[in-house]
């Protein structure tokens, strides 16, 4: 049996170790900051600390995402017993100065200081991302020192599986993958399902362009995901778990695999977890570039090593999933909420958010905004607050035109809806969806039909090809959008487009096809005039010679046969 970790001891010695340093300098080493040059910055910090001979007083900690990716690389200086300071756009030179001036002589480098009281930070509420940007994701000790694995220990010691599900039920936690299905309901279904073994899958196949919430959670706080999975497995009776991660996220894969190894060594995974009689094996499985694998049944096909095509439901995965066994699939962000809920109680969680959408939601804020990056906000916050307070508004005096939530499956929200709250029900009512959390803001330089075409092209290329309406419908809808956007579309093309939207939505096999028309429908709802403006006037045949546009289209097709039911 693996040795059992003593959580208390580990936390204690970690905190003691931290207290030996007078200053801790945290260097964001997330993917976004790394691509902005965080690697050399961290080197410079280390070297400067050595040169200044403050090694024993200063600890340089590589951390996960601090949030404001547009201002990276970010560095946060945390002197013991004093206010922390965050620096933006740090270069190796600035990094050297941070050590030499700020750390050594307590002189701030004013022009690079990032105000942490600004709304971008103060309007956020961090639960899932509580540790991101605060701890070294590669060290389990750091996680444990922040209270990590305490929720698991508590659950294993004091709670029956049913009681854990009850807590989740009371908390009102809903799936963060987009649809918002009550998490406890799913857990309960797996718990009640007959058959053994049961499987648990963490869905980290985040394919939405412009969305990297799950990646950040997996990269910056892998143990939180693992703890959430262990608790979920304990509650549901699953004995084997998979974390399905996109192959495009090598760092996430690496860190998760490492975290699993460490957890296993510490007795947190494998047999007799933390001395209990509960066993769980965890494994990382990587995708290979297929958006459709975010769909539950396609994801399972992919884990089984097959083509990632969705299959019919029922039977639902909780009845017959992986290899025909009961299986539950939760989004990574959903699972990352679990430890905090179990540790702090359902009531604590319920204080955040709205009556029906509780807790927080992580969004990847992108597009035409002053501040872009990763944010975690309470549910029910208005779009206006996200765009103008947190996002800092549109740069260069631009005008807000629309925000697209939910990526290619979602819809756009125009300026008139800026004051609507962001939660599952409201967004769905407005023809968009929460989605996994991509939020792209567009200014008035964007033409909405182009946006719809962009998303349709994505859906066309990501359609798996199994069902006819999605495979052929996305091709046809894209062709029609293409013609409209190129200025040679006719009224008839728009009519075909709308009728196809309805057919593809109602007849497609899986969520990809069913939601593929959403961007078209919502841009048509809010910006119909932009489509109409692009249409070529109809050709007249009343005695006048028809003018011939590039690709002439008849204004109205007529058919001899009767429509309607037979």
């Amino acid at each position: 049996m693996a040795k059992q970790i003593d959580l208390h001891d580990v936390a204690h010695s970690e905190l003691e170790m931290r207290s030996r340093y007078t200053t801790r300098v945290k260097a964001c080493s997330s993917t976004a900051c790394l691509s902005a040059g965080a690697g050399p910055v961290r080197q410079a910090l280390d070297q400067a600390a050595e040169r200044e001979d403050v090694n024993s007083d200063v600890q340089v900690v590589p951390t996960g995402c601090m949030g404001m990716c547009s201002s990276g690389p970010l560095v946060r200086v945390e002197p013991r017993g004093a206010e922390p300071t965050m620096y933006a756009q740090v270069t190796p030179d600035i990094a050297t100065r941070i050590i030499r001036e700020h750390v050594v002589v307590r002189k701030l480098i004013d022009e690079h200081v990032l105000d942490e009281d600004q709304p971008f930070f103060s309007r956020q509420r961090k639960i899932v991302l509580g540790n991101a940007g605060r701890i070294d994701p590669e060290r389990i000790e750091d996680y444990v020192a922040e209270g990590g694995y305490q929720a698991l220990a508590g659950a294993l010691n004091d709670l029956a599986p049913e009681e854990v599900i009850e807590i989740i039920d009371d908390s009102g936690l809903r799936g963060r993958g987009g649809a918002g299905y009550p998490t406890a309901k799913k857990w309960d279904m797996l718990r009640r399902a007959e058959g053994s073994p049961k499987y648990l899958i963490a869905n980290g196949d985040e394919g939405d362009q412009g969305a990297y919430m799950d990646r950040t959670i997996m990269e910056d706080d892998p143990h939180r995901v693992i703890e959430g999975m262990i608790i979920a497995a304990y509650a549901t009776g699953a004995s084997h778990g998979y974390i399905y991660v996109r192959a495009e996220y090598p760092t996430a894969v690496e860190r998760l695999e490492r975290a699993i190894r460490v957890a296993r060594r510490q007795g947190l995974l494998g047999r007799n977890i933390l001395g209990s009689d509960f066993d769980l094996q965890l494994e990382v499985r990587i995708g290979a570039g297929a958006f459709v694998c975010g769909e539950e049944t396609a994801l399972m096909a992919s884990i089984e090593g097959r083509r990632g095509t969705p299959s019919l439901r029922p039977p639902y995965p909780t009845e017959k999933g992986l290899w025909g066994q009961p299986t539950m699939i939760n989004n990574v962000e959903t699972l990352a909420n679990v430890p905090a809920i179990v540790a702090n109680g359902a009531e604590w969680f319920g204080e955040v958010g709205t009556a029906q959408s509780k807790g927080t939601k992580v969004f990847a804020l992108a597009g035409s905004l002053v501040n872009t990056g990763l944010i975690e906000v309470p549910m029910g916050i208005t779009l206006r607050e996200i765009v103008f307070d947190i996002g800092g508004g549109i740069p260069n005096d631009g005008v807000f035109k629309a925000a697209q939530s939910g990526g290619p499956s979602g819809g756009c929200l125009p300026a008139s809806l800026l004051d609507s709250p962001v939660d599952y029900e409201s967004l769905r009512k407005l023809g968009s969806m929460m989605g996994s959390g991509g939020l792209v803001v567009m200014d008035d330089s964007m033409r909405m039909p182009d946006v719809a075409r962009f998303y349709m092209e994505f859906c066309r290329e990501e359609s798996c090809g199994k069902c006819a309406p999605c495979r052929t419908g996305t091709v046809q809808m894209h062709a029609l959008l293409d013609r409209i956007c190129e200025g040679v579309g006719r009224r008839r093309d728009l009519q075909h487009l709308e009728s196809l939207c309805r057919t593809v939505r109602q007849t497609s096999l899986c969520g990809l096809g069913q939601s593929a028309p959403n961007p078209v429908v919502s841009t048509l709802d809010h910006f119909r005039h932009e489509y109409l403006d692009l249409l070529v006037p109809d050709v007249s045949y009343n005695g006048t010679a028809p003018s011939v546009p590039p690709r002439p289209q008849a204004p109205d097709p007529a058919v001899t046969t009767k429509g309607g039911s037979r």
Partner: protein
Amino acid sequence: MAEARTAERAAQGEGHPSGDERFALLDKTLRKARYQQDQLIEVLHVAQDLFGHLSEDILIYLARQLKLPPSRVYGVATFYHLFSFTAPGRHSATVCMGTACFVKGAEEIVQQLEAAHDVRSGQTTEDGELTVSTARCVGSCGLAPVVVVDGVVTSHQTAESTLAHVGEVLAKEPTEAST
């Protein structure tokens, strides 16, 4: 048929007849996967890392080793976009086409790259020097538009800056050094 012999020898546990050491590494992965058929995608990933792309020979080899029908292996490999079946160029430029990058003009970058190097996205130039491709969001949306050149992320790109950068990379290394 050479392929059939390959398979026979492989089935007898002799590994790949070519003696290519990379197949030994592939065998190691297969053993680690306990020749489980559901590990096909993982094994394909390893094979692509080792060989740069998935040739027919490799696919046949894996089919026989995992005792899967070749058509199934082909079906799986061609379903997922990350697997490639032709050798990549010596240099690569991948333009992110995620929403954030699209909104900030990534399309223009792709078009100009294609035009300047006479190559279609997803393909390699005739001299085998450069592969131009697009990606579905590399996750650095705060830095949009993003272009990954030879694995290095470059941020806030324009068509001009990308062309200049790619030009530099191509010029840096003489062709014979990499053959």
